[in-house]
């Protein structure tokens, strides 16, 4: 299979879907020429022109609100918010409006749109350009939340989003953008709510999503050398959340580590741990351990950032601790 980057796979999906469906348009800051801050949609503007690729003023509330009004009236917006941190200027639109519009009006309106933003920390992205808010969105009924980790899923899940009927929050981790992976030729979609076992193993389950999937795979390879066989589950979507696949894996391995880059405190890891604790309580041989960022804003200094955000080492340590049955993290 051909290998392309996560970002290219994402852009391919936009291209193909815009070709297919004339009601899809893109709204974003600096999107028409530059293709967005990271060039994530380079060439889209040239291909589809200013009617369908619309440069926005810096007005996040209006961007998201416009997308809602458009989605209620027959269009399918892709709203590119640039950095995930910029959602914070449009939260009323996302939470009080988009998430609720179908429900509160008793199903009279749907809201098929995608909001994309670059999430997570890259080198020195600092306190206001590094956040991961998926746990927030998961706590809001009405939103679909996806956080793929591979080029294949980026493309397939965006297509699913653009053919679905619900609002989708697409978390695009900055550090995944340039990662390459195999992507099938031709049209395909990736279903929501199906976790993926990306590496089988027998001793411990590592459940992760987004950037922590490749980091967990690195950790698993390192653990292999120590004789520990880790099964790595890529959750892929946060809402819907496929806890079953994790539970089945845990029934086999008896141990679970959950890894995400968002803050550990109040993060999705807690929800997964709580659900697994309920679902397969009797199978667990050790407490579930969570890996996530420590509780501080993301500092610019790489020395400090490394202390706050988790990497391969933290996953390895967490696995070692559950293998010993002693919580060290």
């Amino acid at each position: 299979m051909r290998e392309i980057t996560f970002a290219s796979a994402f852009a391919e999906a936009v291209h193909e879907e815009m070709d297919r469906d004339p009601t899809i348009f893109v709204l974003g800051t600096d999107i028409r020429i530059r293709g967005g801050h990271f060039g994530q949609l380079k060439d889209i503007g040239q291909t589809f022109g200013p009617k369908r690729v619309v440069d926005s003023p810096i007005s996040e509330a209006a961007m998201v609100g416009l997308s809602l009004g458009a989605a209620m009236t027959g269009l399918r917006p892709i709203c590119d918010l640039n950095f995930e941190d910029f959602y914070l200027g449009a939260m009323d639109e996302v939470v009080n409006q988009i998430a609720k519009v179908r429900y509160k009006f008793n199903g009279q309106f749907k809201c098929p749109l995608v909001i994309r933003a670059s999430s997570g920390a890259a080198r020195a992205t600092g306190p206001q350009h590094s956040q991961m808010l998926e746990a927030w969105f998961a706590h809001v009924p009405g939103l679909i939340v996806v956080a793929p980790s591979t080029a294949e899923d980026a493309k397939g899940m965006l297509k699913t989003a653009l053919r679905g009927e619900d609002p989708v929050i697409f978390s695009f981790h900055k550090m995944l953008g340039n990662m390459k992976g195999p992507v099938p030729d031709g049209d395909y979609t990736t279903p929501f709510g199906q976790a993926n076992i990306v590496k089988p193993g027998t001793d411990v389950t590592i459940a992760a999503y987004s950037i922590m999937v490749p980091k967990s795979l690195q950790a698993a390879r390192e653990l292999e050398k120590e004789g520990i066989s880790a099964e790595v589950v890529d959750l892929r979507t946060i809402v819907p959340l496929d806890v079953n696949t994790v539970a089945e894996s845990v029934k086999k391995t008896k141990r679970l580590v959950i890894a995400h880059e968002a803050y550990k405190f109040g993060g999705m890891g807690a929800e997964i741990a709580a659900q697994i604790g309920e679902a397969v309580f009797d199978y667990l041989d050790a407490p579930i351990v969570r890996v996530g960022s420590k509780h501080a804003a993301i500092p610019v200094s790489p020395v400090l950032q490394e202390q706050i955000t988790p990497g391969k080492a933290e996953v390895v340590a967490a696995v070692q601790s559950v293998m010993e049955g002693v919580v060290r993290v």
Partner: protein
Amino acid sequence: MSKANYYLQTPRKHEVTSFDRELVLGFLKEMVRIREFESRAEEQTLAGNVVGGIHLAIGHEAVAVGVMQALRREDYVTGPHRGHHLVLAKGSDMKNVMAELLGKATGISGGRGGSMHMADAETGLLGVNGIVGASIVIATGAAFSAKYLGQDRVAVAFFGDGGSNKGQFHESLNMASILDLPAIYVCENNEFAVETAVSYSTGVDNIAERGSSYRMPGIIVDGLDVLDVYVAAKEARQRAVQDSRPTLIEAKTYRFKGHSIGDKEDYRTKEEVQERMKSDPIFKLKHRLEEAGWLSEQQWNELKSEVDREVETAVQFALNSPLPSAATALHHVYAKEMF
């Protein structure tokens, strides 16, 4: 991009006889429908039958009717928390509107939304809203959609004087201006946001003047004169569909009732309210029609009793409608049930 310039327009007086008689009689009836609906809604609230608080639009009738009559059915409308008049004027069945206030399954939003969350896909009502400012952004998107799809359609956002101080107002009007959207922004300036006077909260003499920040005409209308509202809205609709340019309309009106039922109103005097009620928009129009010889007492009585029957039917419908089924509580969260 056409860049119609800002200008400020002040209220205009139109001869009632310069309009079609049936049209104006229709305005009157629509206004009376709203007034009677609101009175019964108040009564139902005091009787304990309404679920949740409601905000009566008594005093706002001419704004809703004047604008909606200038629109076509396919035009989109959004509104704020105070919105019964908008829902009715846009054409929803009064029975379902009353049923919604009572939280019934037959309500326009199935009882899920209540007074502040009514929408009607049939009439292009994209919803009134519990969040101040939200109506403004959503209509902007509907206007975008109409233009994108090449439809002969406009989108109208209603909001209050208080709403004009939200960031969404600024972002939306700028967006509509630079994207040349067929949008109409109608500020119902009733001089108060709850207890807070517009003269205190709003750093400009006329909200319509804010159009100048967006190269958008700022049209002040007498919100108690349905004819002035109607003509301005017609012109704005024309500007929207022909030039694809937005308009800001400020309708100067007054809230004859409290902010919501139970409001002690200690921020204004009874005398002030009495004084202002002399400009009752229904009374004024009725008077003009009578003077023009276009409305006899008998016609008025017929109109009234027709409306009374409709409202009474709506109240009975609402009272007799079933409550929503508890089993449906998790429907419509997503397209398919997920949780």
